[in-house]
């Protein structure tokens, strides 16, 4: 049977996952966080949390997706059981809901690339605020670029894994090149005033600041949000892994690549801002989109090299930014589409429907509540509210993954005790239960790096503590510093978040029983070891392999088999 869809090679998967992980968060959130949190001091906790939070979660995601061979819904259905399929739906929804407005943000970056190459950001009398405001306040323009982003994304994923792979390889390599070019120019700028103070600041450690909890919390948030850990991206791409792929090495590569890009982008942004700004830290810590679309064009306009420097800098940087945004967009759409395909829907139709939904549900964020802040800079408040609501929801996707692992360990140990294969008691649980997921799905023999006990400790102890710290500190801050925080009508409050979450979670819980009545089809490459007999999904009589004929659902399998066969 040649019905499964998979990546050609390991680097394809790596590039796709790196593309998913690297987004605007690396290029415009990271420099702001470094600026606001003591420069080089921030890098220490940020690196620690890469290994304590992001990579362990990504390992888990790859391992789950590689075994379940389905998207997020199927993965939770197989790993956590039928009753928990809604967790996968939640994960998919959060990612898609973010995609609704992320397409618009990606559109901004393309617009700025266009402005960069047409010289709309350089020259006498260009007021970057005016450029930004007139763009944002022009719904036609914003929608046009949103539309372009969606078209490009759909084109990239229309044909499935191999196309995704190719696009990501090309975009990621170009991104590296473009960012290095920007970095070179900005270091040159920073060096011209004789000090390299941007780079110095970014790599200077103030030991006192290491005792500030604030810095650690911010570093954790940066690591958690920027690396896409726990968001279901790795689950989705793992579906296309070849049979003997090393999940652990992939996770390390993806995490390290993500942070590598952050460092390059951070250095480029900080150096150029420190080179020309009188109070660089105030500039860097200004509202996020403000740095990118207001401060940076001003800074880049002063790049050395006559008219070539600013041109290269401006066009190169925004092209890199739009590549980063596009590759993230691709993974977002693929995450959604994969779930449709798993449930027997035709891929092309799924892609089209997802694209249409992205466009339509994104429109309000593109045109509604475009306001001016106190400094007269336009910002899209509806989009911001969407980000406020769904951004925090991402953390719960991560929690669901951890929950699944905890649950599996406990159930597996209980079963082994019942079968007389494992000792009972707490010691038995520590010995067999806690390591069950790792033993069964991570250390499968395909991996060069064998994952040790450290992973259990991180997942069972560090993760719940860090998750709690993150949630308590963020929501605590929100409660303490927001007026009228419980009023669901307050776009900055907690009430609106809980209201939306409540509605979504309740309707998903309700949908769960319909969801599990449908058969689900696993995308299994030939010869892959995908035994799920120890998992709840092993007892699920509606889990099938792609291409199988399911009584009552023959139309699904046949249609799909034809399509998938063509694809490969």
């Amino acid at each position, binding site marked *: 049977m040649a019905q499964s869809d998979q990546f050609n090679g390991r680097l394809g998967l790596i590039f796709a996952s790196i593309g998913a992980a690297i987004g605007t968060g690396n290029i415009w959130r990271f420099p702001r966080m470094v600026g606001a949190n003591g*420069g080089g001091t921030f890098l220490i906790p940020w690196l620690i949390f890469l290994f304590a939070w992001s990579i362990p979660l990504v390992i888990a995601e790859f391992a789950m997706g590689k075994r379940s061979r389905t998207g997020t819904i199927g993965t939770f259905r197989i790993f956590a059981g039928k009753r928990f399929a809604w967790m996968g739906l939640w994960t998919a929804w959060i990612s898609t809901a973010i995609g609704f407005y992320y397409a618009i943000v990606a559109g901004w970056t393309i617009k700025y690339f266009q402005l960069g190459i047409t010289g709309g950001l350089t020259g006498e009398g260009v007021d970057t605020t005016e450029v930004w405001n007139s763009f944002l306040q022009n719904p036609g323009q914003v929608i046009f670029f949103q539309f372009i982003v969606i078209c490009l994304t759909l084109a990239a994923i229309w044909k499935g894994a191999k196309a995704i792979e190719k696009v990501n390889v090309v975009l990621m390599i170009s991104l590296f090149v473009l960012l290095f070019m920007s970095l070179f120019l900005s270091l040159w700028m920073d060096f011209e005033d004789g000090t390299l*103070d941007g780079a110095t600041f970014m790599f200077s450690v*103030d030991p006192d600041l290491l005792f500030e909890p604030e810095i650690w919390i911010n570093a954790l948030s940066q690591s958690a949000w920027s690396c896409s850990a726990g968001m279901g991206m790795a689950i989705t791409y793992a579906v296309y892994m070849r049979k003997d792929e*090393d999940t652990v090495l992939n996770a390390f590569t993806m995490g390290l690549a993500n942070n590598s890009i952050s*460092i390059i982008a951070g250095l480029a942004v900080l150096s150029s801002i420190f080179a020309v700004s009188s*109070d660089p830290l105030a500039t860097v810590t200004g*509202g996020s989109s403000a740095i990118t679309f207001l401060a940076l064009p001003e800074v880049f306009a002063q790049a050395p090299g006559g008219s070539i420097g600013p041109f290269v800098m401006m066009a190169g940087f925004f092209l890199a930014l739009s590549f980063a945004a596009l590759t993230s967009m691709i993974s977002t759409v693929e995450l959604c589409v994969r779930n449709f395909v798993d449930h027997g829907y035709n891929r092309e139709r799924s892609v089209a429907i997802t694209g249409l939904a992205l466009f339509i549900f994104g429109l309000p964020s593109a045109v509604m509540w475009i306001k001016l*802040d106190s400094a007269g800079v336009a*910002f899209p408040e509806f989009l911001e509210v969407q980000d406020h609501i769904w951004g925090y929801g991402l953390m719960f996707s991560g929690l669901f993954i951890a929950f699944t692992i905890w649950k599996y360990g406990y159930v597996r140990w209980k079963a082994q005790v019942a079968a007389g294969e494992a000792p009972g008691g707490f010691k038995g649980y520590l010995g067999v239960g806690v390591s069950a997921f790792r033993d069964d799905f991570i250390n499968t023999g395909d991996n060069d790096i064998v994952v040790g006990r450290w992973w259990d400790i991180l997942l069972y102890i560090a993760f719940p503590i860090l998750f709690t710290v993150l949630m308590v500190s963020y929501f605590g801050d929100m409660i303490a510093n927001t*007026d009228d925080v419980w009023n669901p009508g307050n776009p900055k409050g907690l009430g609106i978040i809980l209201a939306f979450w409540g509605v979504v979670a309740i309707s998903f819980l309700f949908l769960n029983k319909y969801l599990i009545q449908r058969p689900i089809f696993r995308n299994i490459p030939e010869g892959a070891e995908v035994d799920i007999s120890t998992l709840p999904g092993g007892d699920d009589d509606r889990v099938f392999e792609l291409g199988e004929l399911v009584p009552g659902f023959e139309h699904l399998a046949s249609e799909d088999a034809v399509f998938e066969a063509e694809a490969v």
Partner: protein
Amino acid sequence: MTPMVASSLAQDEPSGLEPTDIWSEDYSNEIFPWAPESDRDRQFKEYHTYETTKALMLQLEQENPDIFEFHEGLLGGVNARGETVTADTYEGWYYGYSSPWMKITGDVQNGEYNEFVGDNGNYADRHDVMIVGNHHAREWMSYTVALMQLEVIAFSYNNIGYDNDGDGLVDEDPWGDANNDGILDDDGDCLALATSPTNYQDSNGDGTNCGPGDLGVDEDYSEQFITDLINTREIYLIPMLNVDGNIYDREVFCPAPAWESCPSGGWRKNLRNNGPDLLPDFNEEVDEDCDGVDLNRNYQFEWGAPLGATVPLIPGTCTPSEDEQAGIANNDVYTGPYDTQDNDGDGLINEDNVDGEDDDNDGRTDEDWAGGNSEPETRFIQDLTEMNDDVGNGASEFKSTLTHHSYSELILYPWGHCTDCETTDHDQLVYHGDKLAEMTDYTNMQSSDLYPTTGDFCDWHYGVHGSYCYTSEIGTAFHQHEDDIDHIAVRNLGTGFYMAEIADNPRERADLGIANISQNQFIQMPDMVNIPSIGSIPVDMCVANGFAYSLEKSVSHVMYRTVQPTRLQSDYGPKEWSTTEWSMAMFEETTSTCNLLNGENGTVIRSNLPVEDTVSGQVHYKAMLGTLGGGDLYLYPANGEYYVLEVDYRADYGTLFGALFMFFLVTSFVWGGLAICLRMMLVDENEKEFSEAVLEDGD
């Protein structure tokens, strides 16, 4: 188009702004933020009754247990005069309710507990103020204003920076003429309104444009100021003293609507039974001719004098009235019965009336009085005053007191009992009275210049306890039409807060105010502050040489906080700030001199704000000064506002060497790690196939 049409159109065009152009919809329609629009009495569109007053107070106590403690009457015990009394002592004669009141102060459940009064939250270093409404039953605005003050306190406490009028600015127009330019509308928003075809500047219709009570005048007071006030004062707010009379007036005497049934009169007194039978006599109907005592003639200071003023010809007697509802009353100011007891047990009666003097030369003062203090309500006030002794010196803690009455748009200060006489604090009383009159646009005058009275609240408070006491005569009718409740209450809202503010040392405040001292002191504006390249930021305050400032940190200090980017900063929105808690930095004396705002010489005191060098953002600062005389809460800038100082990052960016070291460490870790991972992948045999595949693809 003909010219005629054009001119008529032009007339219809407003020549300025409409309220909704400036303010929120709610504020423009006088919808208050503390209750839903449909809640008519809490919106001050209807009068509260006794029942709703009590229910509201209980509700507010429940919602704000940190600052409110609800009481009715007092618990009793042995009072300051050695009498043993119980809680029953303070229950009204007729309906049997004690006056409801609220103890208001920050962290009210702590502080000392007063066994006699029954209240918590007694702090030796907090200044006490008493505010009483509704001595006279029919004066409905007098308790309404007190209830609005209660609502405002509940809403404003710790609700810093609330935008009361929804114009996007906060705290821009406090009570009174804050900037001394002679215009109450400090922010000029009312004055920007159109005057034709609709005169929006006179929204309350009293004939004065942009006067107090008009929309946009004194409408955005500082919640910080109110919070500071509640945290440094104990407010005893007694909105409805005369519960008996109030219920009778509403339910029996003046059938609703009262402003129609009693256009110029109403029930004034309490419901003491003046005969023929002795109390208790619950079955007896109220004898409207003779029953009741005028509570504001029942206090003991100079009780019974002057004969023939607005008292019955002979104190303690009743002359039946002719037409009470029309306001023709001969017995409305009945002072209560003569005291026939030998209060001191020396065999003589009434030989030393309450007047602050030892009339009988026996070495004791005011020990055998002629009358007064005979009513449950006045006994409540007198015992509360005499038993509220936080510092244990036997004297009343109330240095300022205010009683609301109606009507005639006046502010009255003592004396009331004598004509052509002045108190020893006359100039000071006039000073504060002028301030109260300024914020209400009322007339300030000595009480007895209106008409002489005997045994009134303020004469007693000032005469016996030295408290600066004012009587506000609110509005233009006893039963003001209900359409007028909201704006009249707003117009009088500031007086209660002003009295609370001056409760620390009203005499000193007046002296400093008269000499223009406190107003001419200032703390450095942000553009004058020199931020050093490293270390604490010094902020100077210029104080007058005649100002006996205290260096005690608790009363004299600079409050500062930093404002930095928040971790909640959205990735797509404008810059968001997170504000730290206020911290306190003390003042130090210096030898430098400075010029006060009036050009005279002053002395510099300095506070060094320990702001970290790594702070990039804003520093907010404000000062409070206290005096050696116990005054405090002299705020700079005024009204709980603060200055905003922009501070750049001042610390080093680091050393090149250290940065290089860190750079190599981080990059070898991250980039090196990545390289190792990629290498491990590439040596994997399968990858050779991949590269072949790519090559093939390329073909």
